[in-house]
């Protein structure tokens, strides 16, 4: 697998910020009550993540190591300010629905985390790709939760009414925690299954029983 494909799959699936690393939880819980608001939040975070990753990666040789965190925060805060102005001007309904969570993108751990762990060490193109991949992973997760909660909570899909049946539990706060917990559990479960399958395949190829491979791995 080449370098860029690995960055992309890492950001989107293998190290999914929401389900694997459990970062940026406030926004995920707060804005997943409908698929639209989830999608809006996800894309906003993706844009900020892309821009901040590019700028930080360009400035990585100039920023002194001791003050890097404040420097990153300034860059991120600037991007969020620009995004807020843009949304207020062109998409006022979206910025209204995001409310206090729009300025709070600044303190979203995903963005600072990627700046610190990736963009401050890698060249521009890779950082940009990482920003987009991580952002899309987050967008996917928050939109998925939005779809589930909207479908069960108000019986509609992206605002289109499908049926009359609805469970109020899913559209209020307790439902947010519940759906998030179930989603993480499912992600972990599926990931474990894939891991087991991959290991079994590898051990067959090597003609070693999988137990021996496990023991060897643990020994190492």
């Amino acid at each position: 697998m080449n370098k860029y494909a690995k960055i992309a799959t890492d950001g989107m699936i293998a190290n999914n910020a929401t389900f694997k690393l459990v970062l940026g939880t406030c926004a995920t819980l707060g804005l997943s009550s409908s698929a639209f608001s989830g999608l809006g939040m996800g894309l906003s975070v993706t844009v900020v993540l892309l821009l901040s990753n590019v700028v930080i990666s360009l400035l990585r040789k100039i920023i002194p190591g001791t003050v890097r965190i404040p420097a990153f925060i300034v860059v991120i805060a600037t991007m969020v300010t620009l995004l807020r102005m843009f949304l207020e001007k062109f998409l006022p309904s979206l910025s209204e629905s995001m409310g206090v969570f729009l300025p709070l993108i600044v303190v979203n751990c995903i963005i600072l985390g990627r700046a610190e762990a990736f963009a401050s060490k890698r060249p521009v193109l890779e950082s940009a790709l990482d920003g987009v991949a991580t952002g899309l992973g987050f967008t996917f997760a928050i939109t998925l939760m939005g779809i589930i909660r909207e479908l069960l909570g108000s019986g509609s899909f992206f605002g289109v009414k499908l049926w009359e049946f609805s469970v109020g539990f899913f559209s209020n706060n307790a439902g947010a925690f519940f759906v998030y917990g179930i989603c993480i559990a499912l992600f972990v479960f599926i990931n474990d299954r894939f891991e087991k399958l991959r290991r079994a395949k590898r051990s067959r190829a090597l003609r070693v029983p999988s137990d021996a491979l496990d023991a060897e791995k643990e020994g190492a």
Partner: protein
Amino acid sequence: MLTTILIIVVSAVFSQNFILVKFLGICPFLGVSKRIQSSFSMGIAVTLVMLLATLVTYPLYTYVMVPLGIEYLEIIFFIFIIAALVQMLEKLIQKFLPALFRTMGIYLPLITTNCAILGVAELVLANDLSSVAAGVAEGTAMNFGFAMLYALCAGMGFTLAMVLMGGVRERVEYTPCAKCMKGFPITMMAASFMAMAFYVFTLI
């Protein structure tokens, strides 16, 4: 006046609880709530920073930034003030209260990126008090006193939820459960039931 104060207290602590109803400050709620002691320390630290941050940001916004017409810089200013305050508080506590520093020192740097702090600083900028604390008569103007009271009560609500969660998690940790539910998922389930309990307060 008195009723307004009472409504703000009940609203910020219970019916609009920061963690369980407004979803602000979830990271420390999931991260450092393994023990009652540590969650209580975290809650107190957050309350302190919330009060200090509001003490600085609210006058700065109303008396400096609005007259100068630079409201659009609020995010950058606020995050910087919070980061600086946290640093200062950390140094002060380290110097004068070393015992306290040992128990809550590690939580202080984490507070900078806690959404609850910036959330309070942003929320109290609303002109109408009723948009922040539901139940107050509409049109009640926001002022500095109410802002500080709201920050204090929001911090208390935060501490309450943290301590409750710490108690729950001390039990949950030793309970057998499915492998994929270990850790975050089971904590989310516990939080879900707590949120249900707090939902009742919003119906009052």
